[in-house]
């Protein structure tokens, strides 16, 4: 019933010249998305990645189990000394992420360009 979560990795450079690793998600983010969310993050080369950008532009549905996966990703990234920024959430999910406190650990931006400007 839930649409499979897909994820892919892109490499970008911020306007300030910093390398940025982008995790782009597509589909639902729910309890079945562990591999696509945490697995994709854990597959990034440790030590090389300093900034991770999460792209939610193509995500329609996130439930509390999916939010928990994002929190686990943030926890691992914080422990690894990485900065995490997210973009592309709908107004509703921006509100939900803010309500649960995620904004304390990851900046949320409407678009990729606005997120990159801060890096």
């Amino acid at each position, binding site marked *: *019933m*839930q649409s499979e979560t897909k994820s892919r990795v892109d490499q970008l450079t911020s306007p300030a010249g910093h390398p940025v690793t982008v995790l782009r998600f597509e589909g639902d983010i729910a309890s079945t998305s562990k591999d696509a969310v945490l697995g994709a993050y854990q597959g990034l080369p440790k030590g090389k990645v300093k900034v991770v950008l999460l792209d939610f532009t193509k995500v329609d549905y996130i*439930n*509390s189990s999916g939010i928990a996966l994002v929190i686990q990703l943030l*926890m691992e990234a914080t422990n690894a000394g990485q900065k995490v920024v997210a973009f592309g959430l*709908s107004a509703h999910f921006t509100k*939900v992420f803010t309500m649960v406190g995620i904004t*304390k650990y990851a900046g949320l931006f409407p678009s990729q360009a606005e997120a990159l400007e801060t890096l």
Partner: protein
Amino acid sequence: MSERKTTNVEVRLPSRMGFEKVAMSTASAVAKLMGFPDDRIEDLKTAVAEACINAIEHGNRLNEKLSVGVVLSASVDSLEVKVIDDGTGMQKKPAKPDIDKKMHGEEDARGMGMFLIQALVDEAEWVAGSEGKSSFVRLVIRLDKDA
């Protein structure tokens, strides 16, 4: 929707993760017919989804022989949604998630469903059924609520 009358819509879901989206779509369609603004419909969809997930996972313990009942009652100025399962009901009040504790591994990263339900609708109550059956969560959103 006619005035001074309650219109009921009922859906029965299998206790299988993912089927909460059927309830979300139904609630969204009813709320649209009633004239709720888009942002309130999004709030309702998330609250209904979380209520159904709790019913499937905790109430019916993923037992596919049991179903989750979703009853939507539309009146002139509010929409009530009851999500009914065969569990013993929620014993604790929803706590606000503590992101710092979650980030430090002192609190389960999960466990935000009840908090989201309560935060996104105008009324939420959890009612334990008698003899461990027909427990339900009751949600209400009102049309006159400022966005």
